[in-house]
């Protein structure tokens, strides 16, 4: 399908071809799903909400519920106040959530609806039951990307709900960033194994990976509870994973409730997981249990076993900044050579970080924010690589490049199931990534090697 892509990179002034990002509201919706009993609400046209739900469903293979203001022509002229008020009334009467998290869309942003005012008025007019909560976040799609939307939702939730009672508790806040439910589960396991009391926010485990029970629950069991959200203001520290996704929320909490923020990279790969475990160790003033040490040891062991196959293999990556930074670091750590790293999300900081990480191994690394898959494709046509990593859309590039080994990584993954079940964070996640990388290389050899070259033992 991408056979028509030429290798000559043309100057493009104005457009996006095969994007490596999407719009803010979907991130806000995902984050809001990580709150227990929360109904995400999309303040805009019906389509936005349907798209975000469908896309999340395709990725998580789970029912995703959210409501919409169902904008009409009238709303686009007179504003969405009436729609939102009716919507809130309906949502509480019909679906009875504990909380509604409103996010905006292109349309309501351009119209300029004053959401807090509308919420306040709805509250005054009795459209919102006394014991229920409505929060909002602004997610204009013409700024940032889906990652920004996730970050905004997290920060706004804290702004609305976290309080400090004046008494600091021996609890640490963990902000996992935009990772899979399986990853959130793994982060909790690690924190538990370290012996820490923690609050994870958001937490989509047991929301978007719920078991088959035979009945349909609009609000699954998982998610950070309202009590926890409030109590986060009393924790002694926040460990925020992934600057783009979690830093804003951590800083908001620091400002609001004086909870010191420590921002680290997403714990993907060896170094970043080390940093996470270390952050937990320092925070809890505990020593790392043997169990975790052994996990790490097994990872290092596998890297050594397979190191010859990694050596200086060139990799092209695309996806979201937080993920790419940790992944690039991991690839460098196992001896591979990131050649081009592309995100659709704007931000020069990302480019600097990638250059820093690759300074020793590949000073010529191409690091691009606010770019797209089409650019990456054209670039690798001129500079062949050994491996491609990115979301599902990468498979078209891989096919066009004669079945270039390709590993699905990031969001969205629409054509595989593993990401739902197995984490990529932590040492266990890193082991899984190594398995995928070696599988990709070895499968290629098994397919392409001539009879006399086929190796039984690799």
């Amino acid at each position, binding site marked *: 399908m991408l056979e028509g892509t030429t290798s000559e990179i043309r100057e493009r002034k104005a457009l996006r071809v095969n994007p490596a990002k999407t719009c803010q509201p979907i991130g806000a919706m995902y984050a809001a799903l990580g709150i227990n009993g929360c109904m995400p609400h999309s303040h805009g046209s019906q389509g936005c909400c349907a798209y975000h739900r469908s896309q999340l469903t395709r990725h998580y293979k789970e*029912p995703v*519920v959210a409501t919409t203001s169902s904008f*009409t022509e009238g709303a686009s002229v007179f504003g969405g106040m009436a729609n939102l008020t009716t919507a809130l009334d309906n949502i509480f009467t019909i679906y009875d959530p504990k909380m509604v998290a409103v996010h905006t869309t292109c349309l309501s942003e351009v119209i300029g609806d004053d959401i807090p005012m509308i919420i306040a008025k709805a509250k005054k007019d009795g459209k919102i039951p006394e014991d229920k909560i409505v929060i909002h976040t602004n997610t204009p799609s013409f700024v940032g990307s889906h990652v920004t939307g996730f970050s905004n939702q997290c920060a706004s939730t804290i702004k609305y709900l976290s309080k400090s009672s004046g008494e600091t508790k021996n609890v640490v806040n963990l902000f996992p960033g935009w990772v899979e439910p399986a990853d959130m589960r793994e982060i909790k396991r690690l924190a538990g194994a370290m012996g820490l009391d923690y609050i994870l926010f958001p937490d989509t485990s047991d929301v978007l990976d719920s078991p088959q029970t035979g009945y349909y629950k609009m609000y699954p069991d998982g998610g950070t509870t309202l009590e926890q959200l409030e109590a986060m203001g009393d924790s002694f520290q926040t460990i925020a994973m992934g600057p783009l996704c979690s830093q804003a929320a951590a800083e908001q909490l620091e400002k609001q409730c004086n909870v010191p923020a420590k921002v680290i990279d997403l714990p993907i790969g060896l170094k970043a997981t080390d940093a996470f475990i270390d952050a937990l160790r320092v925070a809890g003033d505990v020593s790392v249990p043997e169990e975790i040490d052994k996990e790490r040891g097994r990872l290092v062991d596998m890297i050594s076993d397979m190191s010859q196959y990694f050596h200086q293999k060139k990799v092209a990556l695309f996806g979201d900044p937080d993920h790419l930074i940790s992944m690039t670091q991991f690839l460098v750590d196992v001896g591979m050579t990131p050649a081009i790293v592309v995100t659709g999300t704007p931000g020069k900081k990302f480019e600097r970080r990638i250059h820093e990480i690759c300074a020793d191994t590949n000073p010529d690394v191409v690091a691009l924010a606010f770019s797209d898959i089409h650019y990456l494709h054209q670039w690798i046509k001129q500079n062949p690589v050994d491996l491609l990593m990115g979301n599902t859309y990468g498979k078209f590039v891989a096919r066009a490049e004669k079945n270039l080994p390709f590993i699905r990584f990031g969001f969205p993954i629409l054509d595989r199931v593993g990401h739902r079940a197995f984490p990529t964070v932590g040492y266990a996640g890193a082991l899984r990534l190594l398995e995928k990388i070696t599988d990709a290389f070895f499968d290629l050899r098994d397919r392409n090697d001539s009879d006399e070259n086929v190796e039984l033992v690799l």
Partner: protein
Amino acid sequence: MTANIHILPGREDQVWQKGSGGNLACDRRSLAGSVTQRACAFCGSRVVLYPIADALHIVHGPIGCAVYNWDIRGSLSSGPQLHRNSFSTDLQEKEVIFGGEKKLHASLVELIQYYQPKAAFVYSTCIVGLIGDDVQAVCKAVSRETGIDVIPVESPGFKGTKKTGYQAACEAAFKLVGTGDTSQIGPYSINLLGEFNIAGEAWMIKRYFERMGIEVVATITGDGRVDDLRRCHGAKLNLVQCSGSMTHLAKRLDEDYGVPFQRVSFFGLEDTARALYAAAEFFGDPALMERAQEIVYEEIAKITPRLKEYRKRLKGKKAALYVGGAFKAFSLVLALRALGMKTVLAGTQTGSAEDYEQLKEICDPGTVIVDDSNPLELAKFVLEKDVDLFIGGVKERPIAFKLGVAFCDHNHERKIPLAGFEGMLNFAEEVANSVLSPIWRFAPRRMAQALNPKEDSHHECNC
């Protein structure tokens, strides 16, 4: 548990049970605040035009809209694959303030120079009108500059449901109609409207007609080409499948060019045969009818033995269906019946009053019919009716699986041709693959039933 799920207030009249009398309300906007399964006007126009493979499709707006519609429909093209790329102007804050016309202009010129498409469609999303962009003017200017047709598709999301978008798409496509040479088109010639070539279905259907001796001038829009659209007014008859999306274009072709149209369906044996006969009858040539009968006979004979096998295994199973358009619902009810299955719940996102009348007629007594439904309602009826199979789209799939019910995708994301005679066999296979999976025996509801055969199982539901 089902007792705890209620139909949403204000929606009672959008749910109807055969045998209960009364009417079904439809064709209204979804309630603000509802978890509707519906999409928007932009989505409607985009999915309808997208299969035109040698045209450039560019989405003018912030990035999201372009991403969610990127290659989601399994419409195949036998030639160019240009339509499977995603092009967007990716509007930024700056353009929202100062306007996006310049960016659109530059994007179009760049893309047209690079890909040399036969025509370009420009989709305006929600905010384009609001930020004051005159898309029409930009299209005209680019058209002049590049010499190809650049056609605006006016379908901002808030304009309405997919239906509104279908109309905008038809209007846009119609701009090309009548600009091509029709002198080579024979007397027995048709267009297939509303056939999107999902998994190659248009190719299968086209072959039937060609075997009959009928020329298919254009499939609109499956495996579509700009030049076919230009000359499609030269065909003598339009067969409209998927009535919802293309009736408007058929009407325009009738009004302006005197090409009559008939609604047909290619889902299921009966409907496929009926469609072939309808065309033969229209041209009034007994030889055509003879050949149609031969084809029907031959094709059905080919698949009957295997179909019988499936029927034996599927007999008595109960199905629920929730699909986009009503016409598809009719065909599915019949097709399921042909497999020995019963439809106990039927619903559509966008059916009209007329559609629902027809649906009511063909359904069995007791069948529940819903318009513009939502997950809670669907779950309620699936459990109440103890359904074995759910047929729907992407948003319904995980709900069915959570309930422990088999699922068949009958929407545009599927990859298996379900149309025509062979399609019926594929459909049976799809249904059997899911319904007969041993996993449903492990579904909690079934396990409870197995332990306690007389009683219905009851679960507490926290919804």
